[in-house]
């Protein structure tokens, strides 16, 4: 009886762990590699990060994970320095999106990432373009 309870407990724990990992990966709707579309909500609403548009340019997972961003989606937005100033200081997106970086600077083309609060609903459609 006791072993049965223990094995049941282990099973439940394993299931819980799997769910956590699954949440962390955020599998894209169409099943492509990468974490799908991430929409940050802090410190301001509706900032889009598209895995697809980044991986399609030839970046692999190691380019950002885990040094710049943890695998757990949205973990960055809980950090105090996840701000525009932080980006200008070459943290997070600013690692590449800087004046002398490999991508457009963080202080240009605002609406490419800031998709707007109303854009939250239309985001997946936007990202598929």
């Amino acid at each position: 009886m006791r072993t049965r309870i223990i094995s049941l407990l282990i099973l439940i724990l394993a299931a819980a762990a799997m769910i956590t990992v699954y949440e962390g990966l955020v599998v894209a709707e169409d099943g492509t590699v990468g974490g799908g579309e991430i929409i940050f909500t802090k410190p301001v609403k509706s900032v889009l990060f598209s895995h697809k548009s980044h991986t399609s340019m030839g970046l692999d997972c190691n380019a950002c994970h885990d040094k710049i961003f943890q695998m757990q989606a949205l973990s960055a937005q809980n950090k105090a320095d996840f701000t525009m100033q932080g980006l200008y200081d070459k943290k997070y997106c600013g690692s590449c999106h800087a004046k002398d970086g490999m991508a457009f600077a963080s202080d240009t083309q605002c609406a490419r990432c800031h998709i707007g609060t109303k854009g939250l609903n239309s985001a997946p459609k936007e990202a598929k373009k």
Partner: protein
Amino acid sequence: MVIHQDRCIDCELCMTACVTTNNVPTYGYRTRVLERDDPKASERKREFIPVLCNQCNNPPCVLGCPTKATYKNPANGIVMMESEKCIGCKTCMEACPYNARYFNEETSAVDKCDFCFNSRLSKGEKLTACAAVCPAKCRVFGDLSDPGSEAYQVVHNLEKTVWVLRPDAGAKPNVFYMKG
């Protein structure tokens, strides 16, 4: 007020600040952020436009009001509401070229942006709630008749194009828009 239109990211912190500062009900608004998509644009495909009462110099709402519940304050130029005089005929709402007014069910009067005059400016604050909260410094608030104010200087900077919304309405608005 001068609005640097391309700085707006539609985070809607201005709307939230306005609602809490001025007790705006959920169905109403004093300021909003409009959006439009331009697929042909080379870089920025989505555009946001913050809108609010333009505090016009020739306000059609004031001309239309039968009870003088809405009037232009001669001291500061703000188009104000005197709720007690409002009979809810909504003529001002029809007259406004900017759709900047809504009917407040609680006060049974039309409500609109007063540049936070009642909630902030009359209490010594220098900025409207929306201008104060904007993280992108999109809204520049100040006295357009004071050459020392930032708003005056931005509007009178000849190197930049400044425009108003719906100039054809002839209302002579006091909210100016620019990019850059």
